[in-house]
């Protein structure tokens, strides 16, 4: 948009040439590389996947260049041919993934919200140390960290040892390869993504507003519900999106901690690409996940836009 504005001023000759040409060139110079990079390495693969999802799978992998609707048909219900058949299991895996992603985001929020409050009240030096601690896990490999959880959760692992030592349970509790184990792993790796946006919005919160609320007669719960929560909502929404989307497509955690028991849509896609060598079906699943995410995001953006839209004219009409 800004480039078209700039070029239009060039054409009308309203601005001196040297002045208006410089920003235009620097704009191209600044935006060009990143546009080219994203175009080649992000948009192109995505386009290939979109095309593949509508092509016929080859017998020994690869694709046959025929239009083929049954990739989506297997998932959504119109495939009933001799080769491909509709199976509701794919939809149920998608639903399970959505549920797990939702629970993960909710658990991350529950864990991080109080911690973010606590950290924001620390004196600056200790606060920065805490922020460092929260980003510390990023320094170690994800796989190593998840294997540590395998060691903790397996029947002969640290957790069962602790429980036996405390005398709480004699028989090992089967935690690993359950949905609970997957949730623990996901919350563990996703918590920093929730924490940082939450912390950013909580740290900005003016303590004076909370005092004003108490002063006007609101107790702790009312103050939280009517002042703290609405004012930190941007952080809650931002963190939830940052946790929900990567969790939905995650396949490492369920494959290490969930085994064959807890299959998520990410595992399914991985299997289609790497084991079944059915790229078109994997691409169709991936497109489905992407459209679900886009759909949810669109709903969210619409909702916020509508809120702003209903706010503004009301204000002007009354003022």
């Amino acid at each position, binding site marked *: 948009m800004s480039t078209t504005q700039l070029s239009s001023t060039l054409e009308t000759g309203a601005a001196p040439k040297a002045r208006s040409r410089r920003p235009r060139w620097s704009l191209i110079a600044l935006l060009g590389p990143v546009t080219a990079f994203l175009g080649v390495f992000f948009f192109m693969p995505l386009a290939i996947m979109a095309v593949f999802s509508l092509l016929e799978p080859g017998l020994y992998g690869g694709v046959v260049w025929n239009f083929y609707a049954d990739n989506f048909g297997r998932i959504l219900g119109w495939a009933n041919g001799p080769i491909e058949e509709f199976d509701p299991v794919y939809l149920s895996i998608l639903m399970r993934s959505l549920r797990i992603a939702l629970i993960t985001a909710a658990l991350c929020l529950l864990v991080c919200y109080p911690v973010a409050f606590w950290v924001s009240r620390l004196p600056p030096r200790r606060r920065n140390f805490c922020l460092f601690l929260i980003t510390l896990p990023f320094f170690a490999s994800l796989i190593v960290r998840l294997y540590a959880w395998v060691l903790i959760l397996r029947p002969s692992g640290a957790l069962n040892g602790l429980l036996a030592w405390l005398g709480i349970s004699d028989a090992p509790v089967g935690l690993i390869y359950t949905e609970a184990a997957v949730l623990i792993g996901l919350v563990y790796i996703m918590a920093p993504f929730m924490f940082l946006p939450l912390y950013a919005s909580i740290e900005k919160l003016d303590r*004076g507003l909370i*005092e004003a*609320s*108490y*002063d006007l007669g609101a*107790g702790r719960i009312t103050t939280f519900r009517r002042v703290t929560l609405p004012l930190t909502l941007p952080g809650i929404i931002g963190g939830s999106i940052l946790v929900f989307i990567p969790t939905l497509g995650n396949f490492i955690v369920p494959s290490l901690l969930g085994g064959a028991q807890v299959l998520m849509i990410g595992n399914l896609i991985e299997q289609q690409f790497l084991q079944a060598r059915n790229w078109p079906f994997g691409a169709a699943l991936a497109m489905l996940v992407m459209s679900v995410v886009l759909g949810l995001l669109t709903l969210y953006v619409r909702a916020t836009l509508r809120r702003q839209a209903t706010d503004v004219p*009301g204000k002007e009409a*009354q003022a």
Partner: protein
Amino acid sequence: MKATTPEAPVVEIRRAIKQFRTPEGQRVPALAGIDLSVGAKEFVTLLGPSGCGKTTLLRTISGFEALDEGSIQIQGQEMNRVPPHARPVNTVFQNYALFPHLSVGENVGYGLSVRGVPKRERLQRVGEALEMVGMNGLQQRSPSQLSGGQQQRVALARAIINRPALLLLDEPLSALDRHLRQTMQRELKSLQNELGIAFVFVTHDQEEALTMSDRIVVLNGGHIQQQGKPTEIYDRPVNAFVAEFIGESNRFRGTLEPGDGGLGRLCLAGDEPLVLRRPAQSVAGELQVMLRPEQFCVHPPSGDRYASLKGRLTAKAFVGRDLEVILETRGGQPIKAALRGHDGQTLAGRELGDEVALWYAIDAPHVIAA
């Protein structure tokens, strides 16, 4: 001007002590044994430099700070264990603290809505409160669309809507420009009359304190230095801190010698003695005497008893109504004087460096503790 009301005090503070800990672990006294009571319809100003404990005192009344020792009673009820939201006081905060996510109307109605007042009554009372501060009709605006003065008014309306027994104001005018501040001072005063409730007003601006208050409480270092009507504080400060903090003052330090006819002579180092009426209470040794700049004149009226101080004119500045001059006595003591009318015209015609005599009534010098 009435200083105290015969009715029962709305706030009664006894031996309030509060200490803060610095990060290094030192204890800093914020309140070092404060006794204070506020009458039911009184306008009390807590005045002092930053760090004197005035804001801490206000926050112990509102409940945001707990006392280490001592007691606070509001309307006869012990408040030490009562949380802020259950106290019958409301606060106008220094930075207004308006809720940015709520409209003006919702901000003002917040106190009513958390108390469960029905919507119809709420809207009506919001309108009334905004009417009192001259802001009715702006209910739908967002606080960010308002000017500083308007935000101030909204904060006021929000604080009075719960009909508190006492309104606390924490330097509410400090962010406004001079002209607006003076307007708001008058409006606050008339609002207080209209509401008939007590105001406790915190400020570091002595002019503001003098204009608005029924009673001024001067604080420094966690202690009450002096409290009284504005004229009392201004004319008869009890110590050098109050004399210095309120208004401008010339202070002379010396020893008092008895003179004839009920007069005394304050012997100053390197200067002629300063003549004054001997104070009623006997004072011995070194003491300080204060003269306000406006207590000097150049042409003393006949009939009254006047004495003079002489010095070289070192500076003069015309500041509107007054001519402000600074004299330096032989002993090196500067004397600041504010002269108006004929006096001012006379000195305006003199050159810097000229020897000048300034006259004062011998009743004017006020003796304060050394």
